[in-house]
């Protein structure tokens, strides 16, 4: 399994770059993960989503989908796409150090 160094600490990630152990995540790692994903700086709104995603993961064991994020994070789906271009659910999960959200079937 690959390891990456964020904020001076080695962490385990899967082949797509998602944390395999969310316990290893620290807030100071988020800006670096975000930069790698093409987000130059994290705003207050980014943090609102990141904290919400962490909270949801701890509650349910999986990250929320874009639709669920739009209904529960206080940030609309349209804004989510501006904050985390391409895939808000995936990018927010990656930045928040949790596994890739399980898709619907």
């Amino acid at each position: 399994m690959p390891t990456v160094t964020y904020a001076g600490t080695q962490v385990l990630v899967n082949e797509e770059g998602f944390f395999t152990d969310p316990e290893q995540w620290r807030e100071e790692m988020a800006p670096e993960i975000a930069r790698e994903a093409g987000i130059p700086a994290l705003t207050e709104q980014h943090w609102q989503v990141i904290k919400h995603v962490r909270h949801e993961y701890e509650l349910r064991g999986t990250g929320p989908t874009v639709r669920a994020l739009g209904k529960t994070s206080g940030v609309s789906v349209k804004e989510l796409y501006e904050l985390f271009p391409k895939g808000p659910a995936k990018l927010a999960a990656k930045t928040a150090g949790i596994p890739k959200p399980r898709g619907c079937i």
Partner: protein
Amino acid sequence: MSERIVILGGGTGGTLSANRLRGMLDDDVEITVVDHDDDHVYQPGLLFVPFGLARPESLVRSRPRQLHAGIDYRRRGVERVDINKDQVHLEGGAVLPYDLLVIATGARLLPEETEGLAGPGRLPTVHTFYEYEGAEALAGALAAFDGGRLVVDVVDMPIKCPVAPLEFCFLADWYFRERGIRDAVSLTFVTPLDAAFTKPVAARALAGLLAEKGIELVTEFNTGSVEGGDGDDAGDRLVSFDGREVPFDLAVMVPLHGGAAYVDASAGLGDELGFIPTDPHTLQSTVRPNIFVIGDAAAIPTSKAGSVTHFEGEILTRNVARFLAGEELEPGFDGHANCFIETGFHKALLIDFNYDTEPLPGRFPAGVGLPLLRESRLNHLGKRMFAWLYWHILLPGRDIPGVAAAMPHASKHVPATTDH
């Protein structure tokens, strides 16, 4: 004191649960089914209506007439459920107390949640086949369509019968070939998923079929709005949240799905989409022990499909009986789904899967059965015959001979290297 079971929803799950329970439980257990109308629609048939392959009125039967003797039917909308007082509040003010509640109210279409899909802003070029009137209207639009760009778009998951939009594409290809105008029609399938289907082996087979039939595949497209109309120079088009566009002359949309409206009005009952948090193996809700959930209404990781509801029925009703008897529940449901996929030209594919095993090639239910993940005429006949089985075997709560609730493993070809 006699126990009262209230079943919300008189569709596939509610009807088959009521009938099975009536046969299993003592006569002093009251069973009441509640639904807001008298129209039980055989939903798999809606796919065929736009192509003139099914008459819409032939798909509808009376809800209460599918229920066995000894089951009460209340024709009334549900306002809300009070899970703390074990009461269902009906529209008009009546209150139904329950000892055990079965939720079978399915999924609801939410076109109003996508800009340009509902209300006065909806374009005349935008259709759906996911409900009765829509399927009928689309039949007219297809008949009048002489060429141009037809797109089939899934706005977001989860949806009922995730294979139906693909089937629509395959049938449209066949339909326009029969009419001799296939060269004048471009067909595009637009999905929020990163592939044609959720599971890798089936996704590859289905992507292959799309390519073979000349149907374009657009993936990871999260539809934000449907735009266009008279005077818009850019023409009618789907616009994704990340700014991509797919132009069309006729759009067949699968709108967002959510749970029944009363769920949102019932404190503590549903999740943010209106589906009920449910144990995936026992089918007991995780909100209250005396609430069980069957079919599309449940927030569990399997397809929202009639076959799933059918397989759930056996486990759910056994667990309801166990619960009433004070016994431990059986974690018996494995997520089994079994779907015919119409591919046109009198052929169909069959896929069979569960929580742990993706759809694989082979035979169903055993070595001499129907071919899996491969086009055949036999599968097409199976799909067309299923309407009869639905009304006469499945709803009355009988078992289909040879088809068990648990997914069969024998006679499937397990790939040497799996994708998970």
